[in-house]
């Protein structure tokens, strides 16, 4: 194990990310204070041994809110990712494999989605649907699934004419079996890489939407809405913005590094050794 880590320094990053997620998810149950408990006497306290990261404008413990907020932010982004994968992958598989008119119509829809910058689209959509976590999830999933559909479809289109697929047809495998046995192993690597890179973007998007008031609603602890609430006190108590900002930055950084690492890892097989 140690040798493995030494040879693959980037895997340390992966381990860090996993332990980071595990930590925040489990620690949220042992947060030192009730994250929503308002104590006006203790508002805007600096860092101390009682309040490790100080308190906010309503006297709530920032450390506890960051921990609990991690659950909202990370949990929500994982949920969004899941939904995007569950919608995007099957559509990409079928669209690429079946081809023809079905594929053309679908790709027009996908193109239409992709024509808009994803932030604008998500903002407009959740603006129309109204603020709230559920609408936010819905809006981001609508923006994100198309990327997976495109990726999966292009892989399927290059692979489906290869001889091994013809042979599978000759051997009587049905389309569904061919997709399952032959196509899914091909797309999983790429999808995993895109998903880890996307995780960071989704968190940023949740935070951004919450920051402008479209996502998590007070008093829910969420990193983006914490930023939003803190902005009025930035000059007096910059910690209110710096701490959630740092939390977001760290998580995005780690998920990107994990994505890079996975990309390298999945590339190894395709690299030709020698000449």
């Amino acid at each position, binding site marked *: 194990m140690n040798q493995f880590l030494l040879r693959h320094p980037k895997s340390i990053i992966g381990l860090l990310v996993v332990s980071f997620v595990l930590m925040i998810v489990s620690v949220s149950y042992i947060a030192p204070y009730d994250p929503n408990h308002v104590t006006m006497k203790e508002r805007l306290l600096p860092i101390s041994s009682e309040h490790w990261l100080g308190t906010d404008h309503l006297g709530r413990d920032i450390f506890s809110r960051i921990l609990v907020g991690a659950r909202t932010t990370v949990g929500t982004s994982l949920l969004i990712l899941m939904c995007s994968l569950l919608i995007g992958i099957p559509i990409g598989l079928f669209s690429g494999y079946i081809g023809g008119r079905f594929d053309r119509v679908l790709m027009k829809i996908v193109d239409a989605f992709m024509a808009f910058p994803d932030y604008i689209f998500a903002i407009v959509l959740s603006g129309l649907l109204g603020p709230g976590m559920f609408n936010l999830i819905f809006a981001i999933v609508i923006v994100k699934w198309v990327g997976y559909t495109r990726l999966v479809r292009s892989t399927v289109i290059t692979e489906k004419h290869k001889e091994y697929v013809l*042979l599978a047809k000759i051997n009587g495998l049905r389309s569904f079996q061919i997709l399952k046995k032959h196509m899914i192993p091909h797309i999983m690597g790429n999808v995993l890489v895109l998903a880890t890179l996307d995780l960071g973007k989704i968190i940023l998007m949740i935070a951004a939407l919450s920051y402008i008031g479209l996502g998590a609603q007070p008093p829910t602890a969420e990193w983006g809405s914490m930023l939003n609430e803190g902005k009025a006190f930035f000059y007096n108590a910059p910690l209110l913005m710096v701490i959630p900002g740092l939390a977001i930055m760290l998580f995005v950084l780690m998920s990107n590094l994990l994505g890079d690492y996975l990309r390298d890892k999945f590339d190894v*097989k395709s690299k030709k050794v020698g000449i």
Partner: protein
Amino acid sequence: MSIPSETVIEAERLSKRYKCGHLALDDVSLTVKKGECLGIAGESGSGKSTLARCLLAIESQDIGKIMRNGTMQAVFQNPSASLNPKLKVIDSLMEPLDGGKIAYPSFLSHFREDRRKTAEFLLKLVDIPGSYLDAYPHQLSGGQKQRISIARAISVEPSLIILDEPTSSLDVSVQANILNLLKDLQEDFGLSYLFISHDLAAVRFMSQRIAIMQRGKIVEHFASEELFSEERHPCTQQLIAVFES
């Protein structure tokens, strides 16, 4: 619609035109008898591969009919594309039998229920050590991959194996070994082949009868020994001239 039992496939007056207007098959008829090898030679673009695909029912002809007696298998030109790079050798090799639709043929019947032993035996038939079952295709050479494709094709004891340029992308000595292997297997199992290649010498080596294709047509069709007969079509003579100075 029935064909004599000693015939494994009979194609009658096949024609196919692609959407782009290219006439890929033009009134092609052929018959393969049990236990024989029919060779089809011709330059690239002569319609050989389209014919193979129609016979395998991967593509459909516009006109004409094909009558098949039993199962078909195929071995294609590019050994790397014939095995899914993400699957272990055993999973590609056992695909025809894994489906459960085709019963284990008699030569494999004593391995019944034991997938791994069956796979090992199949590899042994094509001279590949059983330890390769868990390898991935990228760990194998082109010749080894082609051997595995052949093992896969014979695993269901098909009534016909269509060999579409099975040696064209291999090194000369590997080509020769594969040709020998195909011939040995044909004798051991009484297989019927349709051997398609642009290489007239390989076709001549493998086949009892040869058909020459040009621009979608079978221009002539003769017993192998008559290759040097004076009545040969100019197209055949051209193919011969490439090798004879």
